[in-house]
């Protein structure tokens, strides 16, 4: 018997649920080879586990399990209005994974998904084909790390590597231009040993004040690590976007965000930054309702937000003050045209 008192939760991916359909898929085999101690359970469809009734997202996330399946139907989605398009016309996103190993209390995934388990679609080649089809007609701006954090899972899944190869091949294929955004909070310094810069790929590093990271962004790297990663990435020729989104309110927010910017400005060459995005926390009312129910003691989701046409956000004056504060400070170091404020899209 294990010592039951020793640990309260199973370690991540102690159980792997594998769809019959992908049982023999090379990616399934590759991933399972890295999890030799996991109990592997065969399932008919990923939704049989992921969409069960009555699941507890928060508890499941503490002992997160892995579901390997195949994605069918729609593989590329039009970008949602609450998401920043950075001025791109054909803005799409894709979900080759659902959920994240990081545990940010304010993350909309907690309201969007019925389960805290991680789903990985191993039929990446089908998504690539879909992208290629679209590229025959038009240029594409594609976010591939929205409903997950691909770099955080790179050691196990290797999906960033596969996307890089795909984008690079596309560069020389004569098709329309493909730009891919990889949003992340991961800051693995070994990333650069195994990856290479590709002109069509932008890494969107999300930055928050250290107090916000410690309070709400559980299991994520510290601010200094994220800044160091972004600095090294740019030195090595990667395109980096800084995302100050979502900005999170705390009583001393002005001071905390000032300190964060000082750290950023002192270490990152802002002239080399691709662009920056700014936006305060906002979430749909349905998601917030679920997030609040699941996290009754989370200060960040229990803030008395204002409901504006189905979207919850901080009171207008506070939203404006927080965003303006950050934009003003950023303008001192970066051209205004490189600063993208989410409200701009709305207007």
């Amino acid at each position, binding site marked *: 018997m294990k010592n039951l008192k020793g640990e309260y939760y*199973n370690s991540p991916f102690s*159980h792997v649920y594998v769809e019959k359909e992908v049982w023999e898929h090379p990616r399934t085999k590759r991933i399972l080879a890295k999890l030799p101690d*996991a*109990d*592997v*359970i065969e399932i008919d469809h990923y939704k049989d586990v992921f969409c069960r*009734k*009555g699941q507890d997202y928060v508890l499941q996330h503490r002992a997160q399990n892995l579901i390997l399946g195949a994605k069918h139907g729609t593989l590329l989605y039009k970008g949602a209005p609450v998401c920043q398009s950075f001025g791109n016309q054909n803005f799409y996103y894709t979900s080759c994974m659902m959920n994240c190993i990081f545990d940010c209390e304010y993350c909309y995934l907690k309201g969007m998904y019925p389960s805290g388990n991680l789903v990985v679609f191993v039929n990446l080649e089908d998504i690539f084909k879909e992208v290629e089809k679209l590229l025959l007609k038009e240029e594409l701006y594609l976010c591939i790390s929205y409903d997950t954090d691909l770099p955080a899972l790179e050691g196990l899944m290797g999906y960033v590597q596969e996307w890089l190869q795909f984008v690079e091949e596309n560069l020389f294929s004569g098709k329309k231009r493909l730009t891919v955004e990889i949003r992340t909070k991961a800051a693995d310094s070994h990333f650069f040993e195994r990856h290479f810069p590709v002109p069509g790929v932008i890494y969107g590093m999300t930055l928050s004040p250290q107090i916000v990271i410690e309070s709400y962004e559980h299991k994520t790297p510290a601010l200094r690590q994220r800044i160091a990663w972004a600095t090294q990435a740019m030195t090595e020729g990667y395109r980096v976007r800084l995302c100050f989104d979502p900005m999170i309110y705390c009583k001393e927010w002005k001071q905390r965000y000032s300190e964060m910017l000082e750290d950023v400005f002192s270490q990152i060459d802002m002239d080399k930054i691709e662009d920056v995005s700014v936006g305060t926390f906002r979430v749909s009312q349905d998601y917030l309702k679920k997030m609040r129910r699941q996290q009754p003691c989370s200060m960040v989701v229990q803030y008395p937000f204002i409901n504006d046409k189905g979207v919850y956000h901080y009171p207008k004056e506070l939203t404006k003050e927080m965003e303006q504060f950050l934009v003003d400070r950023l303008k001192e170091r970066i051209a205004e045209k490189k600063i993208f404020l989410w409200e701009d899209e709305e207007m």
Partner: protein
Amino acid sequence: MKENIGVINMIYILTAMYAEARAIITHFHLKKDISHIHFQVFDNQEVGIRLIVAGIGAISAAVAIADTCMAAEAGDFLVNVGICAGIQEEKVSEKGNDCLAKGALLSREPNQGENERICRIGEIFLCNKIREQITGRTFYPDILYPHGLKEAQILTGAAAYTKDKKKEGFWLYDMEAAAVYQAGLYYFGPHQMSFLKVVSDYGDAEKVTAEQVRELMEGNVERIAEYVNFLQEIGRKEQSGISFLEDVLLSETEKLCRDMHCSKTMAAALRQCIRYGILSGVDIAELRKEMYREGKLPCKDKREGKLCFEEFKRRVL
């Protein structure tokens, strides 16, 4: 509501037969609750355990759960404990042998030989996959906590297992687990349900006596108790902070709603504001008293109440 058990969470243990329950009843010093007419129910309110002897089969299990688990809350658990048949003496198929797939999966080599027993009589398993044979529906209870038990997949049928039955790649066979899961889902989430099964036979259940069942369960009662105690600890841990928060929230919201003449909508907004205040470290009781001292509370009507709420919100945020 729970009956006088304070902050202790309740573990509902469901067995089909008394012979499966006896060792657990003795271990936890459970006392018979004679208020139940249709089922034998044994309680120990101090430790937060209720054991229900449901009878054999799916319908008995479903009715027993409906009859006894209506008061279940977050932090409570349902544990189905009982004997089952071991499906053995077959060549283990590559796909069906899911749980043995650890390490062996990639080589695609079965790691058990023909006629080798997968499970021994008296061995206890925690089920991670349950299939209802009659419908083909499959259920997956969450396995979130370390337990030290072997895990297995179980097939639930309408009649006792015999060797000629279709095995569908499962290791274990019983007559209740799928029904317990489906009925339990009305009151519990998949993270709150566990299925502990002790192998009693290999398809000749008619030869198993009540005395043998008692012995099999006695042989495993320590493991079952350890598992149940751990769930109890988990439930307590998860709920302790929440209960305190909800208690303060309830009492403060009641007082302030009354004195601000809140409408239903305003009461909800006030409640949210108080919750945030408590979480952010504001002493809500002290703030309320302060507003009384300043003569801002109690308000004389709704209009004044609305202004007072705005002032209250400003101070909290």
